[in-house]
């Protein structure tokens, strides 16, 4: 398996995430965002770039090869830009900006033991994904779509399920979803078999999900490192045991992590919640946009948008109450 296949979904989001947050929050983004949040933001940016390339290919009627060149050309440019900025800012780095946080209770050995348990569980999940047989394909045609894109070297020219020309066509809302294009572009770049490639993406989505939950654990338990690790271990157990229904996070992450709904439930929803709890609304908007590019919901309004709207209302109500209390006192 080529190294590029692992580097693209792991390294590229990190670089894109830094650039994305820098654009949204300026140079000070490093003080506000953790490494997890940077990766997750980068994952959303990568989805956005894939969407741009995909729409370009659909609207201009271009080939999949053109789409792959556009996507990876743009991604490479942005990654270099991000690297250059990182190197430039790295020299000027203000050491005082790094705030050391005193950790609460729990001996070092306990924390290490808990980390070990989490790592073990994660390793077994990765092994299960890579070796546990075929992914769950009911109600989904991602594999066929990617194979058809690569075979036709065109986007949605033939019905992926039969290989014959469309008679009635394809719904527009579906036509703009970009995950099959991201996968086929990656397949072109790495020259890897589609099934192996999707297995890698399933692992990346699982890891991304852990990072999203880790980011939430930081928000909910803050300096309590033991609490954060225990929460992640419980998340891991819930993933193992949530293997009973397709809509459960565990089922999606373990059996069909490359689907849009898996990315949404595993990565985007926790990421949005994390951003909303910290009132980092621009980060939530990035997640909303990423969801509209990968999941078919009503006119692009997805779960992340609803979460953000509810959270904004909660924050506004709380602020209003606080204001009234201040006035009364």
């Amino acid at each position, binding site marked *: 398996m080529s190294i590029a296949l692992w580097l693209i979904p792991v390294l590229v989001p990190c670089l894109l995430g830094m650039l994305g947050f820098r654009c949204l929050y300026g140079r000070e983004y490093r003080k506000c965002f953790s490494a997890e949040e940077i990766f997750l933001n980068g994952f959303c940016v990568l989805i956005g770039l894939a969407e741009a390339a995909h729409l370009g290919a659909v609207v201009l009627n271009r080939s999949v090869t053109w789409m792959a060149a556009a996507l990876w050309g743009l991604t490479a440019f942005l990654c270099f830009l991000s690297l250059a900025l990182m190197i430039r800012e790295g020299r000027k780095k203000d050491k005082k900006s790094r705030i050391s946080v005193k950790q609460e209770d729990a001996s070092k050995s306990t924390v290490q033991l808990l980390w070990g348990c989490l790592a073990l569980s994660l390793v077994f999940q990765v092994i299960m994904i890579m070796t546990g047989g075929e992914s769950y*394909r009911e109600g989904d*045609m991602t594999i066929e779509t990617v*194979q058809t894109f690569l075979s036709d070297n065109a986007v949605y020219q033939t019905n992926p*399920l039969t290989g014959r020309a469309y008679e009635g066509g394809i719904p527009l809302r579906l036509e703009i979803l970009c995950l099959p294009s991201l996968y086929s572009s990656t397949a072109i770049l790495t020259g890897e078999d589609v099934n192996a490639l999707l297995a890698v993406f399933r692992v990346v989505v699982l890891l991304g999900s852990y990072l999203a*939950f880790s980011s939430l654990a930081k928000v*909910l338990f803050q300096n309590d490192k033991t609490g954060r690790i225990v929460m992640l271990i*419980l998340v891991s157990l819930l993933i193992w045991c949530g293997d009973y229904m397709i809509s459960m996070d565990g089922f999606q992450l373990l059996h069909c992590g490359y689907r849009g709904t898996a990315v949404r439930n595993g990565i985007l929803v926790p990421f949005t919640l994390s951003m909303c709890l910290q009132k980092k609304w621009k980060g939530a908007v990035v997640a909303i946009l990423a969801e509209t590019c990968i999941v078919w919901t009503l006119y692009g309004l997805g*779960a992340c948008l609803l979460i953000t709207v509810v959270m904004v209302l909660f924050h506004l109500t709380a602020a209003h109450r606080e204001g009234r209390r201040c006035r009364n006192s």
Partner: protein
Amino acid sequence: MQELLRNAVSGWQRYTDDGKYAVLLLGILLLYWYLKRTGSDACTANRNLLWKYTVLTAVMAIFPVTGAILMKYQTRFYDYEWIWSLVPVTLVIAAGMTGFYLECYRKYWKGKLVKPALLAAAGLALLFLCGNMGKSLVQREMNAEGKETASRILEEINALSVAADHGDENRDGDLGNTESICLWAPREIMQYVRGISAEIQLLYGRNMWDQALNAYSYDTYSPELTELYEWMEQLDDRETIPEEAESMGPVYLEAALEYGVNCIVVPQGSQDITDSLKRISEKKSLQIVKQSAEGFEIYRILK
């Protein structure tokens, strides 16, 4: 709307049938409410906000009217269980259990061993009882075996096509059978073919039996194609085929050829199909090459 309401009512039952995460979530929310009332340190501002959000979305998902509204919001493409994507079930269960455990440990049992261990064991037991582990692995392994069989059959088909091409080359001096393959086979083969190779066309796709896939295109299948599918699926268990359907075999085979099928795979022991295909090929002056593999008979039809 009535249909959505009905789905929302039955959906909750379905959602809590196999696993009880939703029930566990409600338990955690109640526990948090109790901790909040007692003024526990575990109730920080962020956790309060998350608790409020989860209560709101869980209540909306459980009550049929609000559930139906959420289902309308997420489009008809998704079933009831998908509205639970809005409820952070995994997060709240994990955070709630962690918060409660650490609160108990730090306040009452610090330095003790038995009681914290018992509480942890009880929590884990509850988690395992409410969930379900490894249920889908068997299905995935079966799928892997099915895919393996389909791969081997596709290899045979390709070998058969190459052999036929060489035969033509020897006979005519040029490659006459480079046309793409259009396959008609039982569902157990057909469902994997396009995932293995997009070079091969199918008479009908997975959406013939997986209805959810019909939402991905406006294409529909004619009643005749549905009849062909049903007939092919009956071939596996020949004793159950009604006499009427069996007599329709030659008609269906001819219809399939009209649809452009040039490769047919049937379960082994279908002598009458061989005879029917021979008759059709003589009538239409086609050439048929036959090969057996993996308990199936492969017929490659050449012009």
